[in-house]
């Protein structure tokens, strides 16, 4: 077995026993990247020199018997919208193509304390706006299970890298499904934590009331380990919750007896691919066999979540992206005579078409005459959706849905129709609207050999129940015996 094939919890054991070094481990990933990334194109930039240097330092520390974190020397890949000091953070945009982070994101500070090794920065839809990574201004990322298909998005690079074993784990960010949907399409585990559990400081803002950073991993155990590292209050993010730190690995218990799981009927009905639906029903059956109760329920207002999401997310984005004016950082046009020209031409040349579309939509719903009808109304509907979740969680511990209504679609299939692309998020956006935690866990392959993921949704700040149920499923199934084939797309 090659080193890159192991999970992080297996690698930690090998490092601690001295069976492997961080140097050989880190090198195995860069070798793998050289072998596979010309096809997958997950990385925007790699950090080989600094990573190898860091790995050697950790090895020397360990060899000398100095105290090191158990995570010391474990490699990780980071979505390219999180700042690592002194390295480029591009958001896969021409606007930030040459931006060098002047400071570390809080999640990076936390990983630095544990001495993790950064492999590189991962491709995404420009400014995290999209569900296929086709909106990257640089290049498209390909799905390792079928190179002619998308990896999902916006954290497509982060999910494809774990799937193709070009990183043992990665960080992504999720505003409307951007961790869970690509995790589902690439056959890996993706967790969007409760809003406020992980600090957003140093994450380039898309929609501030919805954005969350979370782990993309090979299995549920690694997800709990990585959440342990990144969760916690941060005074630099006033929306991060000040609460006692938890050890999520304590929830890795193979037992769901007595657990009550709701199965909202709207997400196994119209608009959901038949094979996906069947896979979800099989998961439900499995949970029942394992001692949980699964009951059909209804989240009727969930069907408005996508409309609410695009109004709120785009409104927030149009405001957040106002800062890009070609003055302090980012792209500056060469064509200008005055200050207004700099603003306007820099923005027009620096932003890609999907980003412009969302800025226009956001500006429209916030503009005089439409504010009440769209933005304010959407925030009220958001309350209705939150209340509906609250009602369901009086009865259920978890909700079970598909993560994505379909498996991976073909590159180019949805790019001409933005609304169709937006509807790829129907199963994931309601969770962000409610601020709840959601996890995608791979469960089956469809007839084309493409991964299907199921989503577990929990109460706010109750990641533990998700971990327990996800772990139990994983221990009683065998999805990880499947490996991506890298078929198709001989380019």
């Amino acid at each position: 077995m090659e080193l890159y094939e192991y999970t992080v919890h297996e690698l930690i054991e090998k490092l601690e026993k001295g069976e492997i070094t961080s140097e050989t481990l880190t090198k195995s990933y860069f070798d793998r990247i050289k072998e596979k990334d010309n096809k997958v194109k997950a990385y925007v930039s790699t950090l080989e020199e600094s990573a190898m240097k860091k790995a050697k330092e950790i090895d020397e520390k360990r060899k000398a018997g100095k105290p090191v974190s158990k995570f010391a020397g474990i490699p990780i890949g980071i979505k390219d919208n999180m700042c690592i000091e002194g390295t480029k953070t591009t958001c896969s945009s021409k606007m930030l193509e040459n931006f060098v982070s002047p400071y570390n994101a809080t999640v990076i500070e936390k990983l630095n304390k544990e001495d993790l090794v950064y492999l590189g920065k991962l491709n995404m839809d420009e400014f995290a706006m999209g569900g296929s990574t086709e909106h990257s201004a640089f290049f498209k990322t390909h799905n390792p299970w079928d190179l002619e298909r998308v990896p999902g998005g916006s954290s497509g690079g982060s999910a494809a890298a774990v799937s193709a074993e070009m990183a043992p784990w990665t960080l992504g960010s999720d505003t409307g499904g951007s961790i869970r949907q690509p995790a589902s399409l690439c056959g890996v585990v993706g967790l969007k934590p409760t809003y406020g559990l992980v600090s957003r400081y140093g994450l380039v803002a898309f929609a501030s009331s919805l954005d969350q950073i979370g782990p993309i991993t090979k299995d549920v155990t690694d997800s709990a380990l990585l959440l342990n590292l990144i969760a916690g209050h941060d005074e630099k993010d006033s929306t991060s919750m000040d609460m006692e730190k938890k050890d999520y690995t304590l929830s890795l218990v193979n037992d769901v007896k007595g657990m009550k799981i709701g199965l909202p009927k709207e997400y196994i009905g119209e608009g959901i691919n038949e094979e996906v639906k069947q896979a979800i029903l099989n998961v439900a059956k499995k949970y029942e066999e394992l001692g949980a109760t699964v009951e059909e329920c209804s989240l009727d207002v969930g069907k408005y979540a996508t409309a609410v999401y695009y109004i709120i997310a785009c409104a927030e984005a149009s405001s957040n992206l106002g800062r890009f004016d070609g003055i302090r950082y980012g792209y500056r046009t060469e064509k200008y005579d005055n200050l207004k020209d700099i603003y306007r031409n820099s923005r027009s040349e620096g932003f890609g078409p999907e980003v412009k579309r969302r800025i226009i939509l956001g500006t429209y719903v916030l503009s005089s005459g439409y504010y009440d009808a769209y933005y304010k109304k959407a925030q009220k509907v958001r309350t209705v959706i939150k209340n509906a979740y609250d009602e369901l969680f009086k009865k259920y511990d978890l909700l079970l849905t598909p993560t994505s209504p379909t498996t991976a679609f073909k590159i180019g299939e949805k790019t001409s129709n933005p609304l169709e692309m937006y509807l790829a998020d129907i199963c994931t956006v309601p969770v962000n609207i409610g601020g709840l935690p959601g996890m995608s866990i791979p469960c089956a392959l469809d007839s084309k050999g493409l991964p299907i993921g199921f989503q577990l949704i929990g109460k706010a700040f109750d990641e533990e129940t998700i971990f327990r149920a996800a772990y139990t499923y994983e221990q009683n199934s065998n999805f990880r015996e499947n490996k991506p084939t890298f078929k198709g797309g001989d380019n």
Partner: protein
Amino acid sequence: MAISKEEIIHIAKLADLNLSEAEIEKYTKDMQEIIEFANTINNVNTEGMGETIGTNEKVNVLRKDEVVEFGNRDALLQNAPSQDEGMFRIPKVLN
């Protein structure tokens, strides 16, 4: 209520974006479809409902108004497209 080309031009101006003729055509069509979809939220009865701005408990987070030195001016300035003597350089504004 369909969005007109003129509205898209107005909105783009507010957002400091120049649009080509082709972009105006495309975004007008896209916005018409997206706004029609967004209008479905009017089917929800929100009478008496408050607005959800964030999702956590609505507590004001207060802190002391203290200056914290960032300490690395060069790192900030290196990203400026044009700078001069520690300042961001822009074209002349006053005549």
